[in-house]
C-alpha cells in the first residue's frame, strides 16, 4: 500500500489534474487527426 500521509489530498489532486490534462490532450489530438483524415479522403473521393 502506498503511504501518502497527511499530504494525500494535494498529491492526488496534482496527479489527477495532470493525468486528466495529458489524457485529454492525447484524445483531442487523435480525434482531430481522424476528422482531418476523413475530410481529406472525402474531398479526394469527390474529385475522383
Amino acid at each position: 500500500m502506498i503511504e501518502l500521509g497527511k499530504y494525500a489530498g494535494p498529491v492526488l489532486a496534482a496527479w489527477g489534474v495532470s493525468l486528466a490534462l495529458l489524457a485529454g490532450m492525447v484524445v483531442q489530438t487523435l480525434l482531430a487527426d481522424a476528422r482531418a483524415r476523413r475530410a481529406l479522403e472525402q474531398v479526394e473521393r469527390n474529385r475522383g
Partner: protein
Amino acid sequence: MSIWEYANPVKFMRTSSAILPWVAAGAALCLGAGLVWGFLTPQDYKQGSTVKIMFLHVPAAMMAINIWVMMLAASLIWLIRRHHVSALAAKAAAPVGAVMTVIALLTGAIWGQPMWGTWWEWDPRLTAFLILFLFYLGYIALWSAVDNPDSAADLTGVLCLVGSVFAVLSRYAVNFWNQGLHQGASLSVKAGERVDPTYKYPLYLCMLGFFLLFVTLLLIRTRTEIRRRRTAALLAREVRG
C-alpha cells in the same frame, strides 16, 4: 541528403508515418514506467509525499519552456526560408506547450500551498511562467484570428520571437533576480547533488517520457495540419473551377 527535404509535406508525411509508432511506443513505455516508479518512491524527510508532485511538475515545466524554443526555431525557419511545414509544426506545438504550462502552474500551486503556505506568489519565475502561458494563449488565438495562413504564420512567428524573452525568463528568472520563493534548478550539470538518486532516476525517466510524448503529439498534430491545408487547397481549387 539535406534536412530541408523534410520541409516537403509529402516527404514529411512519409517519414513521420514510419517513425510515429516507435516514438509513441517509447513515450508510453517511458512515461508509464517513470510515473509508476515516481509514484512508488518513498516520502521525503522534509516534503513528505508532496515530493511525488515533482515527477509531473519538473518535466511539464521543462517542456513548457522547450516547446516555446522549438516553436521559435520553427518560426525562424518559416520567416527566413518560407517552409510551410515548419510554420505548421510551430502551430501544432502550441496547444501542447500551453497544456504543459498549465500542468506546471497547477502542480506548482498545489505543491506550494502545503510547502510555502501559499498557492501563488508574484515571484519572478512564477510570474514569468504565467506570462509565458498568456503568450501561448495569444499565439493560439492569433492563428485562429487570421484567415490567410501565410499572414497568420508571419504574425505568429513575430509573436513567438517576442514571447521568447519570457521563455528565457521562466528558465533563468531565479538566477537573474536571486529572489522570490521558487528554489533554483532541481537538476543541473553544475557540481553538487540537489536531488537524491531515489528520486533522480524516475525523474529522468519522466522527463524522457514527457519529451517523447511531445514528439508523438507534434508529429500527429503536424500531420493533421498538413491534411487540413491540403483539404482547403483542394476545396479552393474546386470553387475556382
